[in-house]
């Protein structure tokens, strides 16, 4: 009798071990608004995020005298501040020409919609040896902007418009200053960004942008004298890290 009781007791001790843990219901807590970078939203205070990508640009054939598509490497950064503010930085480079833009944003969201207003000051530096001579370019550009966002369940759409005002261009060839121009309206840009998850919770950005500009900073080394606006399309891919 005692033997049977002991066995039964042990069985009671062992049996719970055979009871598998309850499988919990999968919870998808992903939030596209807070995981995106282009979609205007309240960035978490003091939070820093970064995205890396490529822009495929087709400069005008008038300038290049050829149909060329050039990849611009892009790093986009965002830093959350209080009171719906954030700071955005953008570094775009094609090695011989580089643009660093930095500026604040203020945004507001309402249901699935949101918007932000921003201003960037950009510094462009380029250097290239042509015909045996060192050519260099320094440009300062203002980019005031407005963005309008719409959020679906797992997808964010953003429409962004920017004004481009060139504050100063200084271009040199060897010892000689070739170009100096100041304070002119250089055009507008319009972009549509789509952000969604690509893999796990990592968000991928696809963008389509039209740069309607006279002076296009990646092509400074052509020393163009044309006084014409061109549509310069850009296909943008980026991975939020």
């Amino acid at each position, binding site marked *: 009798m005692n033997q049977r009781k002991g066995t039964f007791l042990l069985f009671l001790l062992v049996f719970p071990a055979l009871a598998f843990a309850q499988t919990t219901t999968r919870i998808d807590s992903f939030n596209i608004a807070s995981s995106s970078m282009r979609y205007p939203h309240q960035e978490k205070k003091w939070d820093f995020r970064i995205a890396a990508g490529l822009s495929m640009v087709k400069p005008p054939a008038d300038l290049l005298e050829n149909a060329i598509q050039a990849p611009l490497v892009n790093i986009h950064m965002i830093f959350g501040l209080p009171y719906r503010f954030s700071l955005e930085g953008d570094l775009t480079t094609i090695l011989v020409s580089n643009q660093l833009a930095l500026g604040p944003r203020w945004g507001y969201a309402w249901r699935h919609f949101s918007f932000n207003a921003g201003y960037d000051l950009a510094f462009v530096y380029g250097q290239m040896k042509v015909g045996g001579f060192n050519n260099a370019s320094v440009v300062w550009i203002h980019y005031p902007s407005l963005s309008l966002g719409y959020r679906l369940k797992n997808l964010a759409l953003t429409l962004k418009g920017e004004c481009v005002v060139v504050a100063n261009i200084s271009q040199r060839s060897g010892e000689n200053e070739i170009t100096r121009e100041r304070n002119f309206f250089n055009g507008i840009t319009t972009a549509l960004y789509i952000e969604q998850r690509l893999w796990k919770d990592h968000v991928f950005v696809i963008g389509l942008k*039209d740069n309607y500009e006279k002076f296009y900073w990646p092509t400074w080394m052509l020393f163009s004298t044309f006084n014409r606006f061109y549509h310069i399309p850009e296909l943008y891919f980026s991975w939020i890290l």
Partner: protein
Amino acid sequence: MKTRPLVFLLLLALCGCNKDRELAVPTAGPNSLINETYPLPAFSRALMDGVYTVVNGNQLVGDQVIVKSNRTHLLIADATGNYFILQAGYLDSVVFLQGYWRYGYGDDTGLASFYIARSEGGTELVTGVQPQTLILRGGYGKGSESPVSEITLQYQRPFSQTVRNSNFYILAHRSGGRTSDRLPVSENTIEMIGFTEKLGSTGIEVDVRLSSDGIPFIYHDPDINIRLTQKGPLAGPIENYTWEQLSAFVRLIHGEKIPTLEAALNYVVDSTLLRFVYLDMKANRDAMAMVIPIQQRILQRAHDKGRDLRVFVGIPGTEVLEDLMTYPDYQLIPSLCELSVDDVRAVNAQVWAPRWTLGTQNDLVRQMHDENRLAVSWTIDAAPWIRDFINEGSFDGLLTNFPYVVAYYHYTKE
């Protein structure tokens, strides 16, 4: 599918937004007044040459312009890239000028017309006498609109003695300008050579290539592409093809045929008053043996016809320099060297042609002059730089895509 055209348009917008390779030249049409007039003779048109004050119309052309006659037309040019190309005729001692204006750095253009009243110089011009007073009254418009915006030009002074005595060359790049400058004819063509003098050019630069069967022709790019040619079946390196294939399959964007070098130079001799031709040797392989005999024939023809014409084989790089130096008696070949002054001396080039970004280099230019050589600079397009080079430099010519700007600064020089 209704959406397909919309999708296609969106795709086209992404992939090819700058399709405007052409800019229509405004014309007043077959019933315009100029067709009812007698053509104003060349010697009368030459009497109009001078510097003019802009009394009305400053918003377009500033305060001062030049008027310069050429073989067929009149050019009016200002400091910022605006120019007029006008035909001249007369009726009852009133002189009429009609044509169009254009902003060379952009796409603004429109109709333009002037008249010179009998008492304001018309009578003297018709009779071939230098007028005491010369006032051009007229208007300009935008696009094909009537020329209703007033413009009045008053003769101020003739070109200075310095200018009249100088032998300065206004050299037009690619025989007149680039395709991207949206002129009414294609670059590097006989049609452009016929047009270039209207822009104020007194010389041209052309790009020389070689077909696979050794025929020199003029064409800038290394390949057949949509920048220069109408869309056709051929693509790839242009020097892969024979002359017969190029003639059969390739047309330039305004419909012209690619000319052979010899045909282009013969046209310069027979049908223009151009005085300087720079042969920019772009051929991938050694072309001197094919080009120099053509140069010699043309120079002989020009001499026989009493034409003041100089044709230079261009040396843009060391490979071409070495190619020239293999030619017998190369130091007697008229050549233009873009390299250093030492290279100029090595081949005994008659012209030194440094890039404009090196500056005016007055000391080296003086050295070249002391050695009886010419110096021209290339390719200078920005108006402020053209002004500085003309006022502060000593070059014998400037190569440019905007010959009318060079004309303005040259002819206004005191």
